């Protein structure tokens, strides 16, 4: 509530922030049938940072991402990319969907999936030339999958499939990367490979936004955090926003006490709170 009030007072700077943001969402509402999955959400992503979207199951994390990308049609709200409507800026956005969203028995090879990220650049009839192939191989190299280039995608493990999806997003050559649960169900080596690539993008000045579910890694992986439970709960740098109070608001009673204690040391402002009391 206080956040909203502060924004009203600083209206001009807020508008400026939104103009400069690689992803600014205002008043976004998406509903399935008569029940809103995301209600009147504002979000302003900081350029050149990594933002985690966190919240309980069914809080609308993926829905928010899909609506921001135009995959779902929102009931209300606007999405702007660097001050312009998202639809005008699509070539600056790369997307990594949830792994389970496609049929992995599709007749296609790893390299072909990466080349799909370059279809916009290739056009309808443009031939795939050696330089495109080299570019695709380079993307596979960055996720450590060059050895698998000519494998059928169904032969890959879950973690390898996720890396191929990331390579396809890299091939899009975008400035803003939106990822839907990139670490869900992958092995530790893949998680490390993915986070290294994402941090590399961030260090190169790109912006990364990821739906994330593992609260214990938020502090290590991300700069900013956006908490959602149908409505926006809080947003800002991890250091000031990833607090016990905000988590409690977002998750309600769904975060068990034990989980909270395990998190306590990574949380801000927990210090003398429950951590000490538990001991």
């Amino acid at each position, binding site marked *: 509530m206080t956040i909203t009030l502060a924004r009203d007072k600083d209206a001009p700077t807020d508008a400026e922030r939104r103009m400069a943001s690689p992803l600014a969402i205002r008043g976004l509402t998406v509903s399935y049938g008569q029940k809103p999955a995301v209600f009147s959400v504002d979000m302003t992503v900081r350029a050149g940072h990594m933002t985690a979207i966190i919240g309980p199951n069914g809080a609308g994390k993926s829905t928010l991402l899909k609506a921001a990308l*135009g995959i779902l049609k929102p009931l209300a709200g606007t999405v702007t990319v660097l001050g312009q409507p998202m639809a005008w800026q699509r070539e600056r956005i790369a997307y990594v969907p949830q792994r389970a969203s496609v049929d992995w028995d599709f*007749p296609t*090879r790893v390299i072909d999936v990466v080349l799909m990220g370059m279809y916009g650049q290739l056009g309808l009839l443009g031939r795939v030339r050696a330089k495109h192939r080299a570019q695709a191989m380079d993307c596979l190299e960055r996720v450590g999958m060059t050895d698998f280039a000519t494998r059928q995608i169904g032969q890959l493990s879950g973690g390898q499939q996720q890396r191929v999806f990331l390579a396809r997003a890299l091939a899009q050559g975008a400035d803003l990367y939106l990822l839907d649960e990139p670490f869900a169900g992958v092995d*530790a080596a893949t998680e490390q490979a993915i986070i290294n690539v994402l941090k590399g993008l961030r260090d190169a000045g790109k912006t990364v936004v990821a739906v994330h579910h593992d609260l214990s890694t938020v502090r290590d992986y991300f700069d900013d955090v956006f908490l959602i439970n149908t409505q926006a709960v809080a947003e800002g740098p991890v250091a000031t926003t990833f607090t016990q109070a905000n988590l409690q608001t977002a998750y309600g009673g769904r975060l068990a006490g034990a989980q909270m204690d395990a998190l306590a040391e990574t949380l801000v402002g927990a210090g003398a709170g429950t951590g000490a009391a538990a001991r």
Partner: protein
Amino acid sequence: MIWDALLLGLGYNATLVTLGAGILGIAGGVGGSFLFLRKRALVSDAVSHATLPGVGLAFVLMVALGGDGRNLIGLLAGGAVSAAIGLLCVNWLSTRTRLAEDAAIGAVLSVFFGFGIVILTYIQTMSSGRQAGLESFLLGSTAGMLQSDAMVLVLAAALTLALVLILRRPLTLVAFDPDFALATGRNVNRIDLAMMGIVLAVTVVGLKIVGLILIVALLIIPPVTARFWTERVDRVLLGAGIVGGLSGYLGAAISAAVPDVPTGPIIVLVSFALFMLSLLCAPGRGVVSSVVQHRQYQRRVHLRQGLLALAQGQPIYERLTQRLMERGGLMRGDGVATDKGRVHAAKALLDEARWQVVRSDQAYAAAALRYDGLTEMSSVLTVDQIRDIDARLPAPQGVTP
């Protein structure tokens, strides 16, 4: 006789039909490929059945206007219009209502077909005596195919191939990952409509030869057959074109050579024969190949388990394991290990112990993923890495004889 037919030696009309059916087969196979890849194969069944009322109404209309009711172009145009309406109905029902697509297909297919049959029955009672032949749209007929009909086929086939070629990238993207297609700004609905337009074109021109009940086979069986042989979209298209073309050509030739054999059903049976051949014999995805691979894998598992049992001095109970061990010269008939068996058993046990180390060490997480109880460690890790692991093995245990 059959050779004459295959070599186009049965006269002008038979040659026209055979070539026409071959071209229709190519167009059907290529045009149906993305329908199959998009997992919407049955939509084509709704489309084909929905042509019937249009064909009937076109006949009635042409007769009422004083024309020739059997004008093929007019009948096909009517069929195309009602098929398009049926298609839009399926789309609307499955996207705007709670009906799933299969239910929408069932509803549209039966209602349109039923309506078509009513119109056909009405036509039979009409005073115009020239209605004969409309039933041939149900099961197809090649009698009296004209050169102009063949030209329509060639044109439609060329159009279909060109459209698929131009749209192959968006169609692939939508079939594999529609969310990604949307996120990159593709209009998925429009691409789906284009795909259905291709299917509709093939269906309408194929009505006369194969008939509306069986045309779906020409759209679906060729890509399904091609899928057995390849893991690439472009080769599925190519293979489907070949299978479809071959089915059409062979089917039409056979029915021309053998009297009183219907063309459409024979074409479908030929494509089914090619399908069965692929189902059984294709490498990798074929049934025979799967069975062989499974058996080989099962033997490897049994051998490995047998060796580990041998190394740990446990008895082997399974007959298959015993047989494999004896045949490999690893064990004598009385269950005692041979020298060779002891060597192999010790190796298997060492490999297993090394894997234990690898799987418990986070630093080897990538390698640990390759553990399946069968893969030899030397094929996954370098010599240096294995030396490092060996240094951490618990004290060596003797191999029980």
